[in-house]
């Protein structure tokens, strides 16, 4: 499965739905490959802070590349997003919050709570909603697919070898680890 991440804005559809989308995606993949090969995956501190916060909000394995895309999109659509991250981090530290289940009920600041939900939503849906349109930051890495990936196909990706699937139904309780 080749990672393929692009950004999407409805108002710029003409630009992004054509070859430029492929070119953008290809160049991103190329940069990522180059950076990985040279060991230069140095993220700015703001992105690292965002990833630390995300790890608490979304207790799963998180792809740092997707995280960088979400951070960029939220920074462009949410005014003062770095301050929001700092405030949430501060709240977590001050109250010694250990997981999202304890954090959210304790967050009485509505704006901060909404920002936390937006971050969670971006990781699961792969899209950031902004005033100028939606920005797709992930497709197959969107976590909503991981929750059912033991049974359901990620649309457009192969399920298995030809005709190798079957009618076995699994329990809802067998949550995949991801």
């Amino acid at each position, binding site marked *: 499965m080749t990672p*393929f991440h*692009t950004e*999407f804005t*409805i108002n710029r*559809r*003409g630009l*992004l*739905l*054509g*070859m430029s*989308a*492929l070119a953008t*995606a290809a160049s991103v993949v190329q940069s990522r490959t180059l950076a990985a090969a040279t060991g230069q995956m140095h993220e700015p501190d703001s992105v690292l802070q965002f990833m630390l916060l995300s790890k608490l*909000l979304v*207790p799963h394995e998180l792809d740092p590349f997707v995280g960088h895309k979400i951070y960029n999109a939220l920074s462009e659509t949410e005014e003062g997003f770095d301050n929001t991250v700092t405030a949430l981090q501060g709240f977590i530290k001050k109250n010694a919050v250990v*997981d*999202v*289940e304890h954090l*959210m009920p304790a967050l009485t600041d509505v704006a901060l709570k909404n920002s*936390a*939900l937006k971050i*969670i*939503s971006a990781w*699961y*849906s*792969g*899209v950031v909603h902004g005033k100028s349109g*939606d920005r*797709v930051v992930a*497709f*197959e890495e*969107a*976590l*909503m*697919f991981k*929750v*059912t990936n033991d*049974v*359901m*196909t*990620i*649309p*457009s*990706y*192969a*399920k*298995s*070898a*030809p*005709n190798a*699937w*079957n*009618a*076995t*139904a*699994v*329990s*809802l309780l067998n*949550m995949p680890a991801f």
Partner: protein
Amino acid sequence: MECNCRFPPEHACVLNFSGELFMPSTLNSDVVIVGTGVVGCLIAEQALDAGLSVLMLEAGPRVGRDTIVENYRNLPPTLRNHWNAPYPPKPWAPHLETRTPTEAASYLDLTGPNAKAYEQGYVRYAGGATWHWAGICWRMTPDDLRLKSLYGVGRDWAFSYDVLEPYYARAEYAMGVCGPGDPALQWPPRTARSRPYPMGPIPFGPGEQRLTDVAATIGMQNLPAPQARNSGVSFDGRPPCCGNNNCFPVCPIAAKYDAATALPRIEAKGGRIITNAVAYRIETNAQKKVEAVHYYDPNRTSHSVSGKIFVLACNGIETPKLLLLSADDKNPRGVANSSDQVGRNMMDQPKLIADIEMSEPLWTGVGPVQSSSIMNTSQGDFRREYAGAMFRMENMARSTLGGLAALEKGLYGKALDQEIRRLSACTARLTVEHEPLPLPFNRLTLSDKKDWLGLNRPSIYYDVGDYVRRSAENYTVPLLKKLATALGATNINISPEFLHSDHIMGGTIMGNDPSDSVVDADCRAHDHDNLFLPGGGAMTTGGSGNSTITMAALALKAADAIVGQLNHA
């Protein structure tokens, strides 16, 4: 600006959009085909194989599969169930787009009590609507072709099932249709097949197996669908299905037949394909023969193509539109329209959907997005009173729907994961598609509104009719609720109005009587013996199943007639 070239007046230069003089081209071919969908491509290959020259005109662009797949993946999740969204139309070749109401009203001009049920999705790209068809290939039954004789409703076809059967078999091999070998699981029931399916059936996932088991308890037989998808093996240069569960809006690996896969083969055989060529006028001569098709390129420069045989296969809406656009002194009602039936009898299977929630997981999303249907509900003496219908379940992965719905609830952590999993596994969409009757008042005319090229947009009046409404009230909705209940539904939400099935039929209806039909049994226009109008428009009745395999069979029958006609000439 004047034209000073030495060509005769009919070839004189014209002004293009930019105000520049441009000499239009005139091309020639034995067979001229307008449209590059399944019907056009099947006829093109048959004609080329018979040694005829073929030229195809396509209104839209030729776009690679990789581009369409990336268009799809780059859509926001809320738009991924808009099947037309990965196919942005060119300005000169508009088709329906549905992401917003404004967008939906920008091409098809729909009126009538069931306008919503005619929001037909088709693609004006090379390859046509097969890009995002489901691939399902239910044959019509012998009774479906004799509605008038058997039940006193609708019309009888110009021929019996026995005539159509060999063409069904050829179409199944031409498109690569997989299906069950067990006669008890084949459709139509108790009807001989001249050839087995070229491939065996595609296995069920858990959802379709559960539906099959539950439906059987209430007398509904869910059959494995014959489908133009390679099952377990490669076929016709295309790979086997790997369960990508994305048949619509696009099969990413071409395991499903789409006409785009035929285009390189047509070119290799010597066929010529001109894209971005919008046919706008059919020209006839004093002998009532078609002489030329005129088309615009994206600069609105006009060109023409002459030939011996002309085939209009640009789908059930664009074909009657083009015939009506071609009205002139010789054809005051439009070409091929002495009967006044062009554009009438517009049909589709009016669809109702039931979104259900269950206490136990069903697990759709394994295998193709559609892979089975309940067909035994489409036949019976009740058709004297109301329509038969096909029931099925959408088998698409519901992770996106479950994910977005759970996020909407403001959940997080383990509760979010559990709710996504529950909503994805324990919900389903059931659909029922009703058999339509050919009703002359369901009519396509030319709208006063114009498209980008200045051509009249199609205007369509649509009323599903009492035959369908009685079926919904007395038969299908109660049965839909019964099926949902048997599946363990705790919540059933049925659509408040009829929707479209994207099976466009009837607008150039077939019949033996030239006074009340447009084409004969070979899809040849009664009025013009070198004009063929095969495809959904020619279908006399619609049945309950998907229309493409019948369109393909009619295309092959027309191809035989075309080759025979030219050889005889």
